[in-house]
């Protein structure tokens, strides 16, 4: 039954996006403009009621540097979908999904913290894992792992 659902998803989303099935998950890669429309269809027509994850991947040598990745799960059909889009460093922006899923709020905040992806329409992009005053986005490949930004001056420097 799962194969039938995956096949129907492939049919629904194949054009103009890039669709495949990898490790039992339906993967669709599309342009940033189609993100909300696709998510709305997934939720409304296909019953993907749980937004599992929002994250990004940094490919510094690519022209469009960041891949923003969403994972959806349907509790009724027991199927997963991965939706991806690519954005560039100059304008790392996508639309927010907080209108469809409440859980998108915190996950988009984390993605913004770690990679600098801006989610248009999400009014609350305050730092969530990092703190006020932290400069930079640590999960980008050009941020050095050991580069600390202490908030409290050290004892031996007073």
């Amino acid at each position, binding site marked *: 039954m799962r194969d039938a659902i995956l096949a129907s998803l492939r049919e629904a989303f194949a054009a103009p996006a890039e669709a495949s099935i990898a490790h039992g998950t339906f993967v669709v890669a599309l342009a940033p403009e189609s993100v909300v429309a696709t998510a709305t269809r997934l939720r409304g027509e296909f019953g993907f009621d749980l937004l599992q994850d929002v994250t990004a991947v940094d490919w510094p040598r690519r022209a469009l540097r960041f891949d923003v990745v969403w994972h959806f799960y349907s509790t009724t059909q027991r199927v997963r979908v991965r939706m991806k889009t690519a954005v560039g460093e100059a304008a790392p922006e996508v639309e927010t999904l907080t209108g469809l899923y409440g859980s998108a709020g915190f996950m988009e905040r984390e993605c913004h913290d770690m990679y600098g992806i801006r989610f248009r329409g999400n009014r609350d992009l305050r730092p969530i894992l990092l*703190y006020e005053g932290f400069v930079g986005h640590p999960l980008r490949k050009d*941020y050095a*792992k050991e580069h*600390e930004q202490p*908030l*409290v001056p050290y004892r031996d420097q007073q």
Partner: protein
Amino acid sequence: MNRGATIPIADAGATTHRRSAFEYLTTKKDELVGWGRKFSIFPYPFVTACCAMEFMAVSSTPYDTDRFGAALPRFSPRQSDLLMVVGTVTHKQAPILLKVYEQMCEPKWVMAFGACATSGGFYQNYATLLGIDRIIPVDVYVPGCPPRPETVIDGIMQLQDRIARQRHPIVNDAF
């Protein structure tokens, strides 16, 4: 002539005798204060991470810090004297740690519970404070990731020895 603990000095006479008696009393007083303090530690469990599991285990049966008088946690810095920093302290958490430490009254001691509190553990990156002794003075470091409850008890006992050995001069040398 041997007058017990005193050293015969030419013009000492009764002064030295009185001073040694005075020192005997102050030493006994220090021991009494030390004994009282070491067996009535009120920890402030500043708990953040995995070491909390071992903190819970050491506070309850069968390891039981209550045998050492150190079981009753006080979640107000005003009422506690041992700041147990249990788990990783990140840079985000550092101002809170410093604030809590400063709000505690003297006498106060700090225990760095676990590898992360001691040195940052194996989180050597942008997020972690690499050892709480970068911002507050530490009295005892308990190693382990997380430390076994026996290690924690060993740490408490060593801290107790340190507390017992402290001097509490009523007057200074200029008196």
